[in-house]
């Protein structure tokens, strides 16, 4: 049974649907990469998958059951890292993780140990009692990652988790995502970075203007497109404009007096 399944998801804010008939299945042990240009409906899809917004039509199923029937139970087994690191600036990193862990009902002693260990592993111990307002974007992102991992969920939804991370942290997170898949966890991974998706994701879904353009195993997609890399497949599917030509045009405009 798939850990997460989207069936004909449609979300309309205006007459034009932001997400139009998105369907996929994510099994335990799979890492599904979601790619698409700006405005392709990635964030809306993620928000529907987390239950933060309800689809206009269609269903999100977890373990075969519609998540809207029991959102609380669904969210107990969900680890989510949002695109924007929105955190309470007046709390310290430690306090924020304590808040999240306590809300999730983790036992006190175990929670404190876990927070300390995670902060150490993510190199945040020196800043653990500083207010989040003073954190860099990368530090906030690491706090969000820890918050998603604390309760050992079996389903992860990551929306641009590498945003703002330094090279070392990004390497750790890439390996972490791979390892989560190997541990049998299901991971839905949304990103702009094609190379990372290519390296860590077993499956890829490409969205454009709210619709699924392609959905397959990463290697199969490359083969089907006749491309040696995911970037080639993506450009072949999505890009309407010649990137090289546009770059030259930008230089021309820049030089205009």
């Amino acid at each position, binding site marked *: 049974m798939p850990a997460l399944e989207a069936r004909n998801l449609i979300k309309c804010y205006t007459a034009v649907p932001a997400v139009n008939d998105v369907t996929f299945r994510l099994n335990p042990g799979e890492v599904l990469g979601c790619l698409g240009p700006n405005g392709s409906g990635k964030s809306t899809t993620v928000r529907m998958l987390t239950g*933060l917004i309800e689809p206009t039509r269609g269903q999100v199923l977890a373990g075969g059951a519609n998540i809207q029937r029991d959102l609380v139970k669904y969210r107990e087994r969900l680890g989510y890292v949002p695109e924007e690191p929105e955190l*309470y600036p007046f709390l310290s990193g430690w306090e924020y993780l304590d808040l999240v862990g306590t809300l*999730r009902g983790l036992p006190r002693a175990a929670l404190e140990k876990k927070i300390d260990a995670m902060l150490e592993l993510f190199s945040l111990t020196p800043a653990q009692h500083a207010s989040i307002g003073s954190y860099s974007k990368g530090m906030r992102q690491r706090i969000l990652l820890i918050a998603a991992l604390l309760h050992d969920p079996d389903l992860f939804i990551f929306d641009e988790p590498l945003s703002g991370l330094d090279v070392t942290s990004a390497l750790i997170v890439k390996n972490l995502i791979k390892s989560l898949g190997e541990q049998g966890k299901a991971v839905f991974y949304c990103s702009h970075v094609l190379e990372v998706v290519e390296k860590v994701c077993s499956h890829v879904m490409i969205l454009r203007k709210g619709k699924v353009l392609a959905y397959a195993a990463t290697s199969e997609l490359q083969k089907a497109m006749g491309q040696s890399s995911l970037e080639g497949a993506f450009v072949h599917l999505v890009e309407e404009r010649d990137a090289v030509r546009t770059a030259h045009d930008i230089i021309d405009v820049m030089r205009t007096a």
Partner: protein
Amino acid sequence: MSPKAAEAPEQTTQRAAQKPFARLVRHCVGRILHGGNESSEGELDFGVGTMLALLAMPGAFATIFLLGKYGSLFRFLRGETKFDAYAASLPDEYFFIVLAMVVTGAVAVWKWDSLIPDRRDYSNLAPLPISSRNIFLANLTAVLLLAVVLALDVNAASSVLFPLMVCGSESSFAYFGVFLGTHLLSVLLASAFSFFVVLAILGLLMATLPYRVFRTCSVYVRCGMAIFLMAILSTSFAMVEFVQNLPAASRPLIKLVSPVWFLGLCQFLRGVADPALASLGRLAVVGSATALILALGAYALSYRRCFTQSAEAVANLPSTGGVAGLRAFRWFDNLFLKTPFERACFRFSLKTLFRSENHTLMVGGFAGLGIVLASQTLFEAATAAPTSSTGSSRLPSADVLSIPLILGYFLLLGVCFAFEIPVSLRANWIFRLAVNPETGECVPLARKIMLTFLIPFLAIACLPVYSWRWGWWIGITHTAIVGVLCLLLIEILLMRFCKIPFTCAPPAFKSNALVTVVLYFLGFAIFTSWMSTAERWALEDPLRYLVFVPALAGTWLILQRYRGEMTALDSRLIFVQRPDTAVEVLDLTFRR
């Protein structure tokens, strides 16, 4: 005139506005008005027009309320034939000076964090080819511009209406002109003085304290200033009597009350001040000049310290207190907070109340208002002559009994109001994800937070003071009565409460806001005046306390019954509060 010539002035203005310095000043004005710090995002922010209108309102309303006093028809009906405008207007002149100082000072305290450029400004402006001196000058110009606009706006309505009203029956225009000019000069100078004193304090604190210490004590200093401003407002009721008897009752402490300086200046310029008042008037000029110089000096120093060195301060992260502070919550967990929801949200709420400046100021403002009203009540009770020398005069009066009720009322109201103001609204996604919306724990949580403020107040202030002054019996019974009444007040305030404090977006406009304000005034009268009078009556014969039992129990039962009748939909946890609609659609299918 040719169209080209007609367009010229407009184009010149546009060109001037596009110059880098003018654009920078505009930017600085904008960031001061809309807040610069990160924590203020998505919180209280008014449009400029609305803000200016709101600030002008107290002066306008205060003047309109004086129509009965100065209107010639009203004076004729009262049989007043002789009218000395200068003498009659003295208390009101003092009130307008105080009002000008309080409103301007309050705005400066409110905009405290935006007055000096911060790290965000540094990261945005420093990479641009603008000299540090120009950034400083632009921000200083913006601050001075704000001070001028504020002073003019706050006093605009009263400066026109008040002289018109007072001098309406005078035939001489010169008389009106002198009255208007002196009034305008006094209130404008008072406003500027108040603004620059706040700016000087801010600048001096920033220039002298380490950044970490400054951030920690900033909120408490602001609360202290808010309470001080409200205390000054309360002097308008008592101070005029001292001023009128100045030569006879010369009190050295009166020199410390700054609004009296400006009243002295006003009367001196009108040529009606006695020497004592005139000497105080000179203090107004000296004080204003000193405040301006101090403010500019402190501003320059703090700018140098906090803005130009802010890039280095990035590495120096301010601490929130560490694990030791967090572990203080542990015994609370074991004793009072039974569920994970309560534990997490209780800590979150207390930290918000003490660390978010808007929320601390809100509670501090309400507590300050309570302190001002309580001190006034105490002052009245202390100066009131005893009515008899019987045994009952040894008991505390109703006024004295009402003091903890006044303080409790404002403290609880302040906390409850603060709950409604969201903090970093976009960060509430974690509550949306991790909390069961069907949890019925919002009211118990909010009740416990309010009790955290109430119980120390009762135990540390109310019980010892009343026991020491009137004996243990009165101390204990009065504290018990205040405690029970406050518990009932909490239940009333939380009647339809179904949110986690600070996480819910308020509606854009509450159609019932006026009714709510009237209800709060009525509630204040019932809670403080009626209840203390009833308690005073019961004190004379302790058996009368038995009347309280059924009355309070009955109220409690009614509240519980009302809450019991709320539907599951009404008590569902919300994160967005929608305004009450004019037409409700009944979902009758729900009942099938």
